[in-house]
């Protein structure tokens, strides 16, 4: 199989070929490194490429397999990691100048799990600085370009992970999601992304943004691939005090069962507050068509009313900056990261302020100031305290909704991928893109985005599925069923519509749309 063919395989297909000896981990890793060299100058998904380390892992896996050792399912399948996941031997920058060149003295738990699974780590992917953003435009190292249209954003904060997977620069990636940072980039790039139940994937070693909202999660091109990675990552970790003690459900079995396409008895709840006005017509059209597909598979579709979701956005933009302002206090130039010496008098306090002023970008400063304001004495009940009460109301809305439905659905985002610069001058407009993804973070519920087609502008649209806490397997069951039915209609996966990425000197490229592809008949 040619190198370029190896990059087009799903993780599941690649793992089968590795197990059967059809190909080797070294060949697969080399193929992806070649692909990265070919297209990443245009896409800029990666901040660091770990060629030597990845090939070393690949050689070890090949040797073990040749010696007849039984290996984990994804052994030899390469993976990319969002750059807020700390890694020994590779820089971790969180997309910020504050941590330029910083080498972590320890691996995150998810990295330990990926290494134990024998997965070569291709590198670290680009992101909005400290995960603060919805477009990856706030990365201190330059934006990532959407493989569907290089003049457009891939979403954020995890734009690098999603773009790498969409552009075949990695079959799998790990992202993190605080208000939609896995799901929205997946919607904008035509990939699958999952934010798991809060506490089900360890946050140890993931640079913290908002500790009560952050969750690491899998990104892939198919629902099954995402399930396979989720299985590697999930499970109790005593080093994360918010880590759930429960054993996770079987995501892969759920995905395989779901693929058979029988949703008889499954109740699907359409969240009244998360569709309709404010959503692009093409987004709404693909959403409605997906509901039809679900009905066709035997599911019943009802509308559920979540009245307090109207306040979710406000609550989030108080809770998240408050927690982030606290979490980012550690970046002060004392023990690690950027240190700037101020004008005399040089005191520790002035040094910290100068280092932070120089190391943080505008969006980070905005959120730190907003968070400091929300937490300032005299403001607690009015802002942060009020937001925590609204969080209770939102959890209650979800509880009531889950009495009427097994999964809740909405479009992942109100729009398709917008152009660079469109929202930079209007922070509030940028924030509003998260309106559909935020509620699941506030409640700690697991949620998935998977592709539901192309909008009228030829850009991918995401379909969001939300399940109750600890029922992440339901996402894979319903998601796999929807994906199989949609791909049958389209005749091919959505990403097959993605035309070849040409480097900027060859001129701009636009998606190559075969008539009718990606839009249900």
């Amino acid at each position, binding site marked *: 199989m040619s190198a370029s063919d190896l990059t087009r395989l799903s993780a599941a297909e690649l793992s089968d070929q590795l197990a059967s000896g059809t190909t080797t981990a070294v060949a697969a890793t080399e193929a992806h490194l070649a692909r990265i060299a070919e297209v990443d100058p245009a896409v800029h998904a990666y901040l660091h490429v770990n060629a030597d380390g990845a090939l070393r892992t690949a050689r070890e896996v090949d040797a073990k397999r040749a010696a007849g050792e039984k290996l984990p399912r994804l052994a030899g399948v390469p993976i990319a990691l969002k750059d807020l996941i700390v890694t020994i031997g590779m820089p971790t920058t969180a997309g910020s100048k504050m941590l330029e060149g910083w*080498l972590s*003295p*320890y691996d995150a738990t998810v990295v330990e799990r990926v290494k134990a699974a024998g997965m070569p780590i291709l590198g670290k992917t680009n992101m909005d600085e400290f995960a603060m953003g919805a477009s990856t435009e706030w990365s201190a190292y330059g934006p990532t370009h959407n493989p569907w249209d290089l003049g457009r954003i891939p979403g954020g904060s995890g734009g690098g992970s999603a773009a790498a997977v969409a552009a075949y620069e990695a079959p799998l990636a790990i992202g993190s999601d605080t208000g939609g940072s896995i799901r929205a980039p997946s919607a904008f790039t035509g990939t699958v992304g999952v934010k798991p139940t*809060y506490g089900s994937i360890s946050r140890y070693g993931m640079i913290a943004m908002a500790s*009560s*909202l952050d969750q690491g999660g899998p990104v892939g091109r198919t629902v099954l691939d995402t399930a396979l990675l989720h299985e590697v990552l999930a499970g109790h970790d005593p080093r994360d*005090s*918010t880590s*759930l003690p429960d054993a996770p459900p079987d995501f892969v079995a759920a995905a395989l069962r779901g693929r058979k396409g029988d949703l008889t008895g499954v109740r699907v709840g359409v969240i009244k507050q998360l569709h309709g006005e404010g959503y692009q017509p093409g987004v709404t059209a693909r959403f409605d068509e997906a509901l039809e597909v679900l009905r066709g598979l035997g599911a019943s579709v009802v509308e559920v009313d979540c009245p307090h979701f109207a*306040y979710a*956005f*406000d*609550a989030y933009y*108080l809770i998240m900056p408050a927690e982030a*302002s606290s979490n980012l*206090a550690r970046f002060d*130039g*004392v*023990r*690690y*990261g950027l*240190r700037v010496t101020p004008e005399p*008098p*040089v*005191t*520790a306090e*002035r*040094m910290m*302020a*100068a280092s*932070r*002023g*120089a190391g*943080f970008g*505008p969006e980070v*400063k905005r959120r730190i*100031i*907003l968070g*400091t*304001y929300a937490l*300032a004495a005299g403001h607690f*009940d*009015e*802002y942060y*305290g*009020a*937001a*925590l*009460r*609204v*969080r*209770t109301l939102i*959890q209650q809305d979800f509880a009531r909704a889950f009495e009427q439905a097994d999964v809740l659905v909405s479009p992942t985002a109100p729009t398709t991928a917008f152009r660079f610069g469109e929202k930079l001058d209007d*922070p*509030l407009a940028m924030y509003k893109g998260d309106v559909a993804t935020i509620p699941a973070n*506030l*409640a*700690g*519920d697991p949620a998935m985005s998977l592709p539901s087609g192309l909008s009228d502008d030829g850009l991918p649209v995401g379909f969001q599925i939300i399940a109750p*806490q600890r029922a992440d397997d339901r996402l894979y069951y319903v998601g796999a069923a929807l994906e199989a039915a949609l791909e049958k209609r389209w005749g091919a996966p959505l990403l097959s519509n993605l035309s070849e990425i040409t480097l900027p000197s060859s001129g701009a490229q636009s998606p190559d749309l075969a008539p009718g592809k990606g839009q249900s008949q």
Partner: protein
Amino acid sequence: MSDISSDEVARLAVMAALDLTAAEIAQLTSELNVIVDSVANLGKVATLDVPITSHPVPLENVFRADVPEPSIDLAEVWAMAPEVEADMFVVPRMLSED
């Protein structure tokens, strides 16, 4: 209608140990007012009888076994420190001259 002054933003910056230029303070003051206006209507529903939820999945008494474990390799920590002397992080004085 929120009325956050640029003086208040400057005070917040001091609280947050964050150096801001005059231009940044001006920009942040107008942005902060817009954002706070937008989020200020929570009081309507967030009445004091509604309990607070700080963590989405409540856990209690999360302990680990009282067993010593190895710490991080100090050499790797020093390698990333801005300034080190005799196995200590070097920082400027805490207080100014007077």
